[in-house]
């Protein structure tokens, strides 16, 4: 690629470092990419300034989904917050439940039974597969391959069936509670989950053949959307975005939680750091999650309690303290910072979603000098979910 942009067309920088864009000159055009656009990830938008078909500036706008989750929780008792926390991330809600429950357990001294740890790990891996399946459909869709989304939605639906029989709900499960999980596995669940995993395997193979070997997909994604490994710490990049840049960051391995220290796996790492590599890392991550689920089903203790005894949750007061609990979700490091003041309500809850850094500072930097037609694919390749940003 020897293409060099014609810099004479570009605006000069003002003293404060911002671009001096004169929209009346006829050289530049403002273009809103979103919030209603098929190539946008959820309800957010990017205000693009383009020169010809090249982006010279992008500003991310969020706030379309803001419901003030963190503030709402300050007026609710600890247990009343559970219907709220899961709604902070639609495609992978279980991480909110786990992080919030684990933070409460740590500050209140509740000890979770062993079997509940295994069931929690299983749920988080099932959720991860669901989230990645949605991503694969979106990434292919951003480049015109609609059929991939249909296949992944089919197999995600099967996984939602498993969630439904386990938790009674398909999307927002509210199954992980302080002290453990709400119930034990239904009879025959392991066999039905194994059957679903076989379907995931089959679809994953088809996706690999049709999406990742497709010439158009390769031409449009290899070498596009490069993330420099040096940016990883500067921008707080985590998860597959960092691993595709050759930085083996995976909370499951680096800072093991639940039962990940008893499972055999190595984080998927690659070095291309472009859209293609990030998609491929996520595809391989699905395969790893399938393998982890099989390990969990084989190693999980067959009997034992799944819930610890709790105090009366309606009058539960937690002593003053603060903690941070993290986990590796499909987009990177997900965490809850919980502050308590000895009352019945949380003093402050702060959600650390990986999209917060990926979709804001990182995307605004990466989007400069890309072509308009690559903006959608680039955004999707960062795998961002706006509710995590505005909470």
């Amino acid at each position, binding site marked *: 690629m020897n293409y060099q942009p014609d810099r004479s067309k570009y605006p000069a920088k003002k003293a404060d*470092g911002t671009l001096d864009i004169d929209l009346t000159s006829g050289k530049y055009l403002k273009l809103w990419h979103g919030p209603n656009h098929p190539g946008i990830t959820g309800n957010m938008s990017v205000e693009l300034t383009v020169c010809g078909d090249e982006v010279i500036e992008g500003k991310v706008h*969020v*706030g379309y989904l*803001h419901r*003030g989750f*963190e*503030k*709402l929780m*300050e*007026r609710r008792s600890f247990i009343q917050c559970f219907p709220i926390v899961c709604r902070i991330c639609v495609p992978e809600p279980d991480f909110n439940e786990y992080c919030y429950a684990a933070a409460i357990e*740590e500050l209140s001294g509740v000890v979770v039974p062993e079997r509940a740890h295994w069931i929690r790990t299983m749920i988080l891996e099932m959720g991860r597969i669901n989230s990645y399946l949605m991503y694969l459909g979106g990434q292919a869709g951003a480049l015109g391959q609609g059929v991939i989304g249909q296949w992944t939605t089919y197999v995600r639906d099967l996984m939602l069936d498993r969630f439904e029989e386990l938790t009674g709900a398909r999307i927002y499960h509210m199954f992980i509670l302080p002290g453990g999980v709400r119930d034990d596995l239904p009879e025959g669940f392991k066999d039905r989950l194994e059957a679903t995993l076989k379907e995931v395997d089959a679809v994953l193979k088809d996706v690999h053949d049709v999406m990742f070997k497709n010439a158009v997909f390769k031409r449009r994604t290899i070498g596009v959307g490069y993330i420099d490994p040096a940016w990883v*710490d*500067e*921008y*707080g990049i985590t998860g597959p975005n960092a691993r595709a840049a050759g930085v083996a*960051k995976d909370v499951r391995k*680096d*800072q093991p939680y639940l039962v990940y220290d008893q499972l055999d796996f190595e984080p998927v790492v690659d070095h291309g750091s472009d859209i293609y590599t990030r998609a491929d890392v996520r595809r391989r991550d699905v395969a790893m999650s399938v393998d982890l689920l099989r390990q969990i089903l084989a190693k999980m203790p067959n009997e034992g309690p799944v819930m610890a005894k709790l105090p009366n949750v309606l009058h539960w007061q937690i002593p003053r*303290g*603060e*903690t*941070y609990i*993290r986990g590796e979700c499909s987009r990177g*490091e997900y*965490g809850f*910072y919980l*502050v308590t003041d000895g009352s019945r309500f949380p*003093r*402050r809850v*702060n959600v*650390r979603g990986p999209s*917060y*850094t990926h979709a*804001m*500072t*990182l995307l605004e930097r990466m989007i400069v000098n890309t072509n308009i037609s690559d903006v959608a694919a680039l955004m999707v390749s960062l795998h961002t979910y706006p509710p995590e940003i*505005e909470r």
Partner: protein
Amino acid sequence: MHKLYENLGKIIPLGEMTLQRANLAFITLDRRYLRSALHHLRDVEGYSHLVLLTAVDWIEEDVFQLTYLLSNRTADVDVGLRVMLPRENASMDSIHDIWPTAATYQRELREMFGIDFPGSPRVNEEFILEGWQEIPPYRRDFDTKKYSEENFAHREGRVTKDPASHMKELLYPDRGQ
């Protein structure tokens, strides 16, 4: 963690340390020493990952607590630096030159808590809210219930009925009560 506290204490004066668990501690320090502490932790101690930057409103004590949470991934340890600011005209030094990603956190804190970070890029631009005229909404003295009652029309809740008598009336209307 105690070793880190000792090392850091040799360079700058520190407040109390709360050891939350073996690999997570919170250290209080004066705002004047924050940037030196962050530089030392990032460049010498290996805390290269800024996990989050957020605020807690301790309105009874008339202070905001800013929490800078840093992580050393290779050693699996986290440290949170707590800086207390007076609530009146709260302002803090920006750290966007140490971690560029901090600019987003600071922009949000400016909007949601009213804490200023002079020099931080786009800190005064609207982040999530649009045309907000009230006090910053994540402050404890902002009353969400009062705000919604004043700004949104009242909507009747769902009508609830006793399930037994409701179904009896629905299925057997001629049998009476």
